[in-house]
């Protein structure tokens, strides 16, 4: 084992240990378990955006659509179809992911700034639907009347609704599965073609990589991850509302990824932690929290474009 690999393992162990014991150390810093669950889910969202942005070089500024679709589908399943948390998650992931994959097929020939614009506009379609379709979604008031259900293992049940710590560990488990899958894909030959496309699309094309197909697959995968995160978010809040589909949230995810370091795997999680905690704090002390968040974004763009982890690890990726 080389020194690099040892260091890598040590960092991984530290990250997972911190996440595993979060309910016990967070209170010392003013955190609370429910906030921990929220950060994990939004972090997963940021990592899903970054799966596409940081590792394929494709900027989607409408990913909140898949997040929100997942949330609504999960909530509606729990409310109308089945009182089962896993089924809700499955339904949310499938609905959001499939919708994203289908739309992605339409968009994948666009590039760069045009791609960003088209994804914003199409993302708003779903915001608009959630806003208008009162009978199904509850419109501006949001979708209520569902709650996460206990996990039923036959012999025993785990109460996710009333016990925040149990729920945190459930979220952590889901997070670990999704993130593990992401890391696995990025380490596969397919994942390396994503990075090749990011690095030099022309060269990748000439190697014989059908660039559009690969971008589409990466886009679709990222939509599934995003929808999974959105479904979890519905469970975190027992609630879904149109703002979960709005491009502002897409922008938040992108800024989390950039802030943490979009060329790094864990950066977006760090970005999400800082962003969510800061937002939580600022909005509790001032009504002008929007200005502060806006200022934060401007400062990051101007002074920390490579993000926190990007600065620690100069010019090295994958």
């Amino acid at each position, binding site marked *: 084992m080389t020194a690099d690999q040892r260091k890598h393992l040590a960092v991984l162990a530290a990250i997972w240990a911190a996440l595993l014991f979060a309910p016990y150390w967070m209170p010392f810093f003013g955190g609370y378990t429910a906030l921990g669950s929220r950060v994990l889910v939004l972090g997963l969202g940021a990592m899903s955006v970054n799966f596409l942005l940081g590792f394929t070089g494709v900027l989607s500024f409408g990913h909140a659509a898949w997040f929100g679709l997942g949330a609504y589908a999960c909530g509606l399943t729990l409310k109308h179809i089945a009182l089962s948390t896993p089924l809700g998650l499955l339904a949310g992931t499938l609905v959001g992911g499939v919708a994203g994959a289908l739309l992605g097929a339409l968009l994948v020939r666009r590039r760069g700034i045009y791609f960003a614009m088209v994804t914003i506009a199409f993302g708003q379609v779903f915001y608009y639907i959630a806003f208008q379709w009162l009978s199904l979604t509850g419109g501006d008031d949001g979708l209520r009347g569902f709650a996460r259900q206990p996990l039923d293992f036959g012999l025993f049940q785990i109460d996710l609704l009333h016990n925040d710590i149990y729920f945190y560990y459930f979220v952590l488990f889901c997070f670990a599965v999704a993130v593990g899958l992401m890391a*696995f*894909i990025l380490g*596969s*030959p*397919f994942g*390396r*073609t994503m*990075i*090749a496309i990011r*690095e*030099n699309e*022309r*060269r990748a*094309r*000439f*190697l*014989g*990589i*059908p660039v559009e197909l*690969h971008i589409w*697959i990466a886009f679709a995968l990222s939509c599934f991850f995003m929808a999974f995160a959105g479904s979890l978010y519905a469970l975190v809040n027992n609630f879904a509302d149109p703002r979960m589909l709005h491009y502002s949230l897409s922008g938040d995810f992108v800024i989390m990824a950039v802030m943490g370091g979009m*060329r790094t795997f864990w950066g977006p999680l760090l970005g999400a932690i800082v962003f969510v905690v800061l937002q939580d704090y600022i909005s509790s002390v001032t009504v002008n929290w929007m200005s502060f968040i806006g200022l934060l974004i401007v400062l990051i763009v101007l002074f920390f474009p490579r993000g926190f982890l990007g600065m620690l690890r100069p*010019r*090295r*990726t*994958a």
Partner: protein
Amino acid sequence: MSALEVEHLTKRFGSLVAVHDISLTVEPGELRAVIGPNGAGKTTLFNLVSGFFAPSAGSILFDGADITGVPAHRRVGLGMARTFQITEIFPELTVFENIRIVAEVAAGYRLRPWLNRSEKAELRGRIDETLALAALSGKADRVVGELAHGDQRVAEIAMALALKPNLLLLDEPTAGMGDQETYEITQLIRRLHKAGKLTIILIEHDMRVVFHLADRITVLDQGRLLAEGTPQEIAANAAVQTAYLGQAA
């Protein structure tokens, strides 16, 4: 059977004729240099052969098969690899990673979620072999974008080699290099040429390199074929003297 046969190839861009009715034949294992002043149509010829542009007229035969209508990325699969005038690499990855991507795609693994043990071992062997051939083994873990310009060009050639081509097209491999780097690239090309059945076509401005390496030389001028022959014949050719060598001197 010839490695490459180009017949009456023409490429027009609007009213500009970049390549005008060029025919040439390259034999297997040959090292052919293509020279000519700027704007002679050398790179356009490369782009036609490698499938970047479709020709306006004429045909291209590769190993005896007509590939005129075959798209660029499929020509790669048929055993044709090229480098570019401007270095085309994956700059933020290491030399090893650059070559690994090429090797994986060339082996048809691009959509694979994982590789089994023997596939991994075979791939590893191919990468190591390529690194050794290009004398890059010592720099395998360096980020390509941070290498010296000459080493980047070598890395790019190594990427092309990882495709295991039969025909290698090199577009000005020594462009922008100092004497030492030019010497090293020349040695590399000579090694590749000596090592096996690889057919190489080389666009080059540096006449020392051309006359040192080439089996035969093709001279283009203003999109037309001006002359073709051994280095000795070309050096003695009066038309070439006036059109090109005279200028350069």
